[in-house]
């Protein structure tokens, strides 16, 4: 520091700051390198585990169980990752050979140990693996994670519980589906459709009937995904009684029963354009002869989207052929109606090239 003798205070402060910054930078560089080397080592171990266990687990998934090596402690993490990966396409859970392999590798013990660890990755992988393993006694071990504040962890626990014991899981899960708006809807729908329809339908229908207008659209969509037949009476009732635009819109999108068309037709003149648009789409999917005239009128709607959907719906009607469509097009005197029909006719010819 002798070279700073007599320097202005600002220069001394600047030098000390520069020194601190340099030390911090060097530390950061060193940490980065050490972390990188460490993760390279871990990646190598996981790759070794994968190379050893992936073929064995794949064979076991196909029902063949050969001679098994001992599961080394350092390969446990890699093994669990492969275990989950192999199970993902199986859908119906583990096979006998995989269950045998799990027993031989003492997998449940390793998974319970992972559940107790603080590493997020280990806990989630263990929860998923326990679900695939389908041993009912694991239910109570996984249950506390249903209330974890991490949506990833709680959703994985929900799925795992549904695999372990769906009858016990459903009464715990349905209230949470109603309550937790932050749970990804696509994932919840996926968990519900993976489950046995008979177990899920009734509690979901019951929850939908008692839901507030904020929650109802979400639940109607879930229910229609699991069981369109169970959703139909609820949709019918909602369309008759509700004036909530979100509920009406969801019901229109989820309808599958042509018997309900009488609820749809009045909505073709709804003051909100997107309700008219949804009603036109629904009519296109379920409509019967006579409905084409209603859709033709909508080709002159003031909203582009209503005209577009009406044109698509018109061409989607099973009883409207290519000649009928051309005739309807030629008979239009309104320029907007003709333009939108030309557009949708061209679109259809592109989507289904002959």
């Amino acid at each position, binding site marked *: 520091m002798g070279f*700073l003798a007599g320097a202005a205070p600002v*220069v001394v402060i600047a030098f000390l700051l520069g020194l601190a910054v340099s030390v911090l930078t060097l530390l950061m560089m060193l940490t980065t390198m050490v972390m*990188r080397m460490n993760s390279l080592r871990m990646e190598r171990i996981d790759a070794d585990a994968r190379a050893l266990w992936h073929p064995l687990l794949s064979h076991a998934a196909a029902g063949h169980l050969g001679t098994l090596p001992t599961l080394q402690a350092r390969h446990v993490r890699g093994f669990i990752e492969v275990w989950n990966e192999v199970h993902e396409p199986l859908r119906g859970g583990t096979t006998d050979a995989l269950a045998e392999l799990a027993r031989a590798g003492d997998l449940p013990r390793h998974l319970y140990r992972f559940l107790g660890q603080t590493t997020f990755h280990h806990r989630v992988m263990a929860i998923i693996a326990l679900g695939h393993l389908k041993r009912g006694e694991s239910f109570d071990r996984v249950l506390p994670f249903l209330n974890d504040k991490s949506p990833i962890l709680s959703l*994985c626990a929900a799925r795992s519980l549904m695999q372990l014991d769906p009858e016990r899981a459903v009464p715990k899960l349905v209230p949470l589906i109603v309550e937790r708006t932050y749970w990804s809807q696509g994932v919840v*729908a996926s968990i519900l459709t993976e489950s046995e329809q008979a177990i899920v339908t009734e509690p979901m229908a019951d929850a939908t009937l008692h839901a507030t207008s904020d929650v109802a659209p979400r639940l109607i969509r879930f229910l229609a995904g699991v069981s369109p037949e169970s959703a139909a009476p609820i949709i019918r009732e909602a369309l008759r009684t509700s004036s909530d635009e979100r509920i009406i819109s969801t019901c229109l999108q989820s309808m599958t029963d042509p018997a309900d068309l009488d609820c749809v037709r009045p909505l073709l003149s709804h003051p909100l354009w997107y309700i008219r648009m949804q009603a036109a789409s629904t009519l296109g999917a379920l409509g019967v002869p006579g409905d084409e005239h209603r859709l033709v009128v909508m080709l002159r709607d003031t909203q*582009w989207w209503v005209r*577009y959907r009406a044109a698509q719906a018109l061409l989607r009607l099973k009883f409207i052929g290519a000649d009928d469509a051309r005739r309807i097009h030629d008979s239009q005197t309104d320029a907007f109606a003709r333009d939108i029909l030309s557009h949708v006719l061209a679109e259809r010819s*592109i989507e289904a090239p002959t």
Partner: protein
Amino acid sequence: MTELMATWLLDLQWVFFAYFILISAGYLTLHYIAVISTIRYMRDNRAEYLPRILPSYQPPISILIPAYNEEQSIISSIHSVLRLEYPEFEVVVVNDGSSDGTLARLIAEFSMHEFPEAYRQRLATQRIRGVWASPLYPRLRVVDKENGGKSDALNAGINCIRYPLFCAIDADCILNPGSLARVVRPFLDDSTTVASGGVVRVLNGCTVKNGFLEKVELPRRLLPLIQSVEYLRAFRFGRMGWSPLNALLVISGAFGVFYKEHVVAVGGYRTDTVGEDMELVVRLHRKLRRERRPYRITFVPDPICWTEVPSDLKSLKAQRIRWQQGLAESIIPNLRLLFSRRAGLVGLVAFPFMILFELLGPIVELLGYVAMITLWLLHLIPLQSFLVFLFLAVGMGIMQSTNAIFLERLSFQMYPRIGQQLILFAAAIVENFGYRQMTAVFRLIGLGRWFFSGKARSDWGQITRDGSWQSEEAPAEVVSAVAPRSGFRQ
């Protein structure tokens, strides 16, 4: 007179020093926030923990590619886009009156025919000459229009798209197959999301085959290599730091997803700016804050979009001048956001930060260098002081870049080899000796151009393309380009 100037310059030392401390503290805070949010993000996204989301729950997306004289790279980009792993999307390419063979190449490559589009003009644009579609690639449409600049092309595309979300990407970008699913996730997780952006990476040095990124490598030339470090800095802690505060002011024009109706509601992209991407985001903040509506503008840290950066000084200079001009054009018309009562952290922190350190940064930085050199030449400060300030400035610069490399290590590690890490560290050091000062000069010119030239016009800011990363073979996705499921959804 000389004495007066010298006293003034000596006093200015303290101003520079205070500014320097402030900017360093600001960036370190951002770095700290970015570290926390990166760790959290990586914890939740290290693996695909959750079951695959049902396709019907993934919103359909329109991909919007504005193009002007892009005949060299457009085909590659579209092939990469057409092979994205996403259930339902359409691709709308807007040819902004290119003077080269862009349109002809598109028509020939994708066997396109004229399409009777019922065009709906919600945003005013230059005249549309025609719309083209292809029976072989049903997801693809090309809108051919008269030249009006990038914003005008984007607005024309918005008029044509079918879906409620759109993803604007540059015509020279290469996407990862899972990009769209990643960048859409914030819209699924939070229904108030109005926009999300992703990481843009440097393509120079990489290998692209059939529109797909085959091999990730660092650029071999110095200029693009230094820009790789710059991109890490900008995205790893610039954007990742602001996003958790919901104060993100920039979503790169190269890759961003927007809720269409919000963009239409603010009048679309402004055509009188060269920084249309940032300006749009700032305007969205301003409108939604004014209306007191809950919203989120989010950044996704996954490496999803790759773009070629300038490899010659002329292109780099033009790009940086344009960026700085765009920054000024985005900030000044939206100055009401500054310290506005309703603007929250955007108005209180992010906007002042942007003005003080990004907009005025080059002025202060260059003035600092000039003042220090002048004082030293006039023997008013000893060489020792000059070197100490240089040591601090360079040290701080290296630390910022090292932090970004550290964040990269915490996240996706696109450059995993130890050798690559060392090259990045070397670039982080080298950039402080000449490159930073040079770009500061370019940015100052940009500010001057904004100040003296009045209203700009959204242009294309093209760079000289190297294109050496392309390695084309016969495209294979023609068979996998599945038609969208019948009936587009609103």
